[in-house]
């Protein structure tokens, strides 16, 4: 029996019954990683000894056999979320050698749920990118085609889950960084409503857009993970003190009677033919399952990418100012402190991060603030209102997650604008602060690459999103497909 192929809920069943131990589970996963990660490079850091020690402690204390939601389940963490005692580099040279001194809120939640904190996954530097090619530590490969990117920025987490190198993983989504790699790797990726999951301990890229969310093998696991992660945290003033429902309860309610909106702006000429076909087939399936399909309009969609790259970069320019070599991380000494800043940041940050810091600094500069940052904030409000109006007509929105399947490594690295368009269907969701999921809905013919379906819901409409996703998933076989590594 290969334990590593199980979903979290399947594994939990075995652990609860005492059919397997946390140690055996962890060992099985470590063996799998040993076999495939040399090719994929999904993990940046892993401590087998430490993971097994955590597993032994769980076996000894009996946590795996009680009702703890994740008792004995190893979880992979994107390298941007702090786990005390583990490295946290955010995929950047500037944090080379940095060890976290505290646990993120979600990590504390995972520990409390009995999870094993297994290792750190690769990512675009400071979550800036759509391909994981911007990592300072090398590219992660798509498990379906090693010549292709896994998406990004949470590419390591997506690849690890898709390749059975992790039962579930944490990622972060600022403009699509969970949903797009989930789509490109063929797993489930969930972006919660802004404020649903605490950001405390997540190294900020764009504070008003960032959310932590799970990567899982199926929708039921996604609901399980959300139960663990969601909730109010007094250390994050933007987290919302709203009760957390049991997301697993809503899963089997079906889509009958639900109105599903199709934004006409998302079904456009020039979209990849196979992606378009797969998404349309999925919509048909939802209709067969009893959903009512309605056309909706999100008229300000065209501005989303521009608005995003002003607001996200503006916030990033301040958020990344703390990496200066004074208190932690790498330092390059200089003639004086200003020289040290320049040399440290010059050597520590990669090209894309520098590009975005410069963009954001410019957007906030005297004389430009009104024309760029302030205007972008106004258009952001219009985009949010688009969704508010749309949700008067429907309960959930369905779109493609990404305009195309996984592209080749190096294909877009010379053209940042082309790369930015990779997130065209995911970015508005962060600007509006709503929730969404990506789940598998088909494959391209040749090469065989996963295609993702995006389901969006109202603010705090996680249950509806999971319900639609689960109904579709249970009526199809896509989520059972695994890459032949």
């Amino acid at each position, binding site marked *: 029996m290969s334990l590593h192929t199980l979903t979290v809920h399947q594994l939990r069943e075995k652990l609860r019954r005492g059919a397997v131990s946390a140690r055996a589970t962890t060992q099985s996963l470590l063996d799998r990683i040993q076999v495939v990660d040399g090719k994929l490079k999904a993990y940046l850091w892993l401590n087998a000894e430490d993971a097994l020690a955590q597993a032994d402690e769980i076996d000894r204390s009996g946590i795996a056999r009680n009702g703890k939601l994740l008792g004995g389940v190893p979880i992979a963490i994107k390298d*941007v*979320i*702090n786990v005390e005692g583990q490295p*946290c580099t*955010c995929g950047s040279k500037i*944090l080379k050698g*940095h060890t*976290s*001194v*505290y646990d*993120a809120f979600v990590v504390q939640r995972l520990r409390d749920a009995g999870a094993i904190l297994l290792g750190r996954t690769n990512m675009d530097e400071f979550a800036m990118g759509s391909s994981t090619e911007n990592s300072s530590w090398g590219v992660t490969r798509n498990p379906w085609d090693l010549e292709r990117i896994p998406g990004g920025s949470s590419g390591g987490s997506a690849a690890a889950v898709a390749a059975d190198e992790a039962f579930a993983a944490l990622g972060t989504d600022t403009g699509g960084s969970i949903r797009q790699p989930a789509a490109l790797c063929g797993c489930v990726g969930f972006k919660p409503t802004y404020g649903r999951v605490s*950001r*405390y*301990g*997540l*190294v*900020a890229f*764009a*504070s*008003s857009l960032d959310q932590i969310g799970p990567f899982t093998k199926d929708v039921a696991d996604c609901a399980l993970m959300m139960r663990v992660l969601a909730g109010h945290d*007094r*250390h*994050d*003033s*933007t987290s919302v003190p709203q009760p957390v429902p049991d997301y697993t309860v809503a899963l089997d309610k079906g889509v009958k009677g639900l109105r599903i909106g199709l934004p006409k702006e998302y079904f456009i000429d020039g979209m990849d033919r196979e992606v378009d076909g797969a998404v349309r087939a999925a919509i048909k399936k939802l209709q067969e399952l009893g959903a009512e399909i309605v056309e909706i309009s999100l008229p300000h969609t065209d501005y989303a990418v521009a608005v995003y790259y002003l607001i996200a970069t*503006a*916030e990033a*320019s*301040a958020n990344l*100012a*703390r*990496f*200066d070599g*004074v*208190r*932690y991380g790498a330092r390059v000494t200089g003639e004086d*402190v*200003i020289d040290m*800043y320049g040399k440290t940041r010059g050597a520590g940050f990669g090209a894309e991060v520098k590009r975005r810091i410069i963009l954001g*600094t410019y957007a*906030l*500069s*005297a004389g430009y*603030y009104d024309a760029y*940052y302030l205007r972008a904030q106004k258009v952001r409000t219009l985009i949010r209102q688009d969704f508010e109006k749309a949700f008067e007509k429907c309960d959930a929105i369905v779109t493609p997650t990404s305009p195309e399947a996984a592209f080749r490594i190096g294909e877009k690295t010379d053209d940042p604008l082309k790369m930015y368009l990779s997130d065209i269907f995911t970015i508005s969701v962060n600007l509006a602060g709503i929730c969404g999921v990506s789940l598998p809905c088909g494959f391209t013919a040749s090469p065989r690459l996963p295609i993702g379906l995006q389901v969006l819901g109202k603010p705090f409409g996680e249950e509806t999103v999971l319900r639609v996703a689960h109904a579709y998933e249970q009526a199809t076989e896509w989520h059972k497909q695994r890459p032949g590594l």
Partner: protein
Amino acid sequence: MQYEAVIGLEVHVQLKTKSKMFCGCATTFGAEPNTQVCPVCLGYPGVLPVMNEEAVRKTILTGLMIESEVARFSKWDRKNYFYPDMPKNYQISQYDLPLCAHGSVEIKLDGGKTKKIGVTRAHLEEDVAKNLHFETKSGVDFNRAGTPLMEVVSEPDMRSPDEAFAYLTTLKEILISGGISDCDMEKGQLRCDSNVSVRPVGQTEFGEKVEIKNMNTISGVRRALAYEIQRQTAALQKGEKVSQETRRWDDAAGKTFVMRTKEYAHDYRYFPEPDLMPVVVSDEMLAEVRKGLPELPEAKRQRFIKQYGLPEYDAGVLVADVTLAAFYERAVHGAKNPKAISNWVTTEFLGKLAEAKMTIDECPIRPEHLAELVSLIDGGQISGKIGKEVFAEMFRSGKSPSAIVKEKGLVQVSDAGAIGGFIEEAIAKNPKSVADFKSGNEAAINFLKGQVMKLSKGKANPQLVGEILLRKLKGG
């Protein structure tokens, strides 16, 4: 040509809160470097700020005390610049929507006139760390980083260094009376920068303004402004231009020096802080803060003069220190002689405190004991001189004056027989003085009085001694 100065002050006040502005670290002054720090105030990756509500309440209270408008909707902004004393390389501050705006502070001028100095705004922000420079390296102490800091910006309403001095003194008294801050400039709890320009009298436009930094005492501010006004006036008189710049005050040299010119003006790239929610001040919160509104120093001074019949000087000394005023009021409660108690408080008590380098709270004397001491003297049980001795013992032990008088047997001797005995003895021992008195030198009686007091160990009632002695000398 006659010139006048135009002065505006920016005052930074560290608020007296237990914890920092955006984390739970303590704000105690003088701790070992980097012992009052946590990932939040060190700007570690991934941390988030959480607003200290007490600091917001204190800022609102300040706003109420200086009669400003309190914003019902206020927000936080990031002020961006790089410096090693800034853990995040941005400071969380308030840019366009400060908590308080359009207030004023009334100052007293010579001749009993008053003047209102406008306060443009008072906003809240976080203090920075402290850079320390050693021979070959520099260090940063982050204990101060994140301390709640209120910035109070005045209108350019002051016209002389004396007005600036009066404004600062009055503002400081207000802040202390409200428990906002201890305002100890030596500890950096109150810091002041000044903008000053000079223009010909009668001109309405302002001259080129110069910002002065590094003034570490209130009188230093006055000296720096006097110097700077004289420097700018002299320049204008010579037909030179004053350039807009920032200058540093060197108190030892008594001069200001250029720090940076206008070309180096920072672009702070303010934008709304996405990690914090806007501050919404509800009716309930405002009402609650209003309940804590203390009596303002000027009003208290007037009340002390009226209620306790104190001279203006005494009232001024007592009110200048909130704790002292409270001590006095406790002492005087139900007492018959408020003026005498004020004398003891403002002279003996303050003197002893300074001598012992002690604060009122540390001192063992209880206010009601001071009232008791005065009533012992007034009632003739002890003399004023013995009173001082008793007071010294009260200061040492905290015991009540009656207990001390009893223990040490200090009760005043008012028994004519006993006093007569001392007088006989003094007369017998000092025939020369007696002879002097009798030959018309009336002052000789004072020496004899002193001798009697000495023989009685100070316990004889001085008034009775005088009366009986005179009778004996004249009759004898």
